[in-house]
């Protein structure tokens, strides 16, 4: 029954995306509250779902891949709602909503909502798992700003002013926000790993290896960004590629989060 909240959330994200596409297509796009409000409404529906699911499973609702995908999409919107208005990045909602929508549709349509056997309740493990996914939310938004950077760069290099170019934020701002989101995600993931170690999670095996690889990749990318060893375009490309890698490996890593 609680899945209907996700359907409602999906509708909100679809509305946000569709409205922006239509406005851009007709040349009447104006940064307005509509997108922010529809994203906030979608977030509220996701939150209701997670609360109800949490009451059913009696723990943080990240016990299977379905819940992990929902929690990840919720984290991306959470970070968007914190970052979007603060940096006033026009069109960020339009780029965020399709990713969130895709994650929700995958969660709703794929047969992955199976109740996993629960282990002993350990708050450190729950904290570790939840914070890891919120870190992934920050990386997800870094991926989105990376895509926005690459699109804007392509527009500027092509020498043609389109409706998209006029409405995308300045490329320097996109690069700066991308770097900050990478830093936020990396710090959150590091704390989450610390919590995992405190909880006594085994650090051997494929799952730990993949998690450590993702942490190392993001750490390396962040260091290169801070030390200006790579141009912003490559940092943006890196944040997109690493997040895609993280999403592909999510099914295996998600089991780490199961309490």
């Amino acid at each position: 029954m609680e899945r209907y909240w996700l359907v409602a959330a999906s509708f909100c994200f679809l509305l946000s995306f569709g409205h922006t596409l239509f406005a851009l297509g007709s040349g009447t796009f104006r940064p307005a509250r509509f997108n922010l409000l529809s994203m906030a409404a979608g977030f509220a529906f996701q939150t209701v779902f997670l609360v109800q699911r949490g009451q059913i499973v009696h723990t943080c609702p990240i016990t299977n891949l379905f819940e992990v995908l929902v929690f990840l999409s919720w984290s991306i919107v959470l970070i968007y709602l914190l970052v979007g208005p603060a940096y006033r990045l026009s069109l960020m909602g339009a780029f965020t909503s399709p990713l969130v929508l895709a994650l929700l549709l995958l969660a709703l349509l794929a047969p992955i909502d199976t109740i996993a056997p629960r282990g002993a309740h350990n708050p450190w493990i729950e904290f570790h798992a939840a914070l890891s996914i919120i870190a992934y939310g920050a990386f997800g938004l870094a991926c989105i700003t990376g895509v926005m950077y690459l699109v804007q760069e392509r527009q500027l290099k092509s020498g043609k002013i389109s409706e998209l170019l006029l409405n995308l934020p300045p490329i320097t701002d996109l690069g700066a926000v991308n770097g900050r989101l990478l830093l936020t995600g990396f710090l959150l993931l590091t704390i989450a790993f610390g919590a995992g170690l405190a909880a006594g999670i085994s650090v051997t095996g494929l799952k730990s290896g993949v998690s450590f690889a993702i942490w190392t990749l993001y750490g390396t990318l962040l260091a290169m960004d801070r030390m200006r060893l790579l141009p912003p375009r490559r940092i943006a490309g890196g944040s997109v590629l690493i997040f895609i890698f993280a999403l592909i490996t999510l099914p295996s890593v998600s089991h780490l989060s199961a309490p």
Partner: protein
Amino acid sequence: MTILCAGINHHVAPVDVRERFAVANHEVASVLDSMRRIDGLSEAVVVSTCNRVEFYAASICPERTLDGLRGFLETRTGMAAPLYHHDTPRSVRHLFRVASGLDSMVLGETEILGQVKQAYATAADAGATSGTLNRLFQKAFRVAKSVRTETQITRGATSVGSVAVELAGKIFGDLDHRRVMVLGAGETSERVARSLVSRGVKTVIVSNRTFDRAAQLAEEIGGMAIHFDHWQNEFPDVDILISSTAAPHPIITRERLEPMMRQRSGRPLFIIDLAVPRDAEPGVNRLDGVFLYDIDSLQDIASRSLAVRRNEIEHCERIIDRHVTDFVGWLRRRQHSIE
């Protein structure tokens, strides 16, 4: 009550005529005061900009008011005013078109709305407006807003200077702390540099083969002149390069720029190449962080924006028609209720 619009603008009078009829800000109150003594006139607003001097009046006998206005202007300027004038519906339409930027020299420019608002505020403060013109001007501001938000009449930049400013904004965002280098002090590069300064750029370095010309331009725009032999020393700290030298071969090549870009810590470089033959090799646009625009690409962008704006005129006129009908209907109903 009739609404009368009379005036001269860039369509009917050259600048040497317009400037004689122009009303400076400090003169507006006394001009309004004199106008109110004109027979039949009960309300007045004067809109005076570089492209137009227009008088909007509410009058019970428009012919006598028009004659009085002509006489007043002739006395004031010493020449017969080549005024156009409109009846109520056309006056209303004219004001709505002016406020929306449809009657401007640069189609869709938005500065005029601020000027009309200022003109109305001055007249209202001077007690020269009442029910009719208050309603008319408030309506004009709403119409201008509708036209701006519902159409693409203000879309894009329509001159080389404004395109350069728009692109600089899309690369750097805030231009306040950006450094601009003008290489070759030509007329177009001067205009572009001035546009950037008007958008907040504070540091401009000017370099020209003739140092005196560089010094002159630097003084005019508040910049700093350097000898042409030294421009490469300053270049690594520059964010925007406006180049228009008479060099026969490209002076900004990929080989020369690549090591310089490595010193910039990822900061982008916007090159505005206004020279013909071009100063920058096209290949430099492929370097990370370099955005190169030559004169053709800037003019192409300006032309496309203007074409988009022209295509929107019909849409704008439909919006204005609707509001003119509304306003004229309101005016008629008001007159009936007074009678």
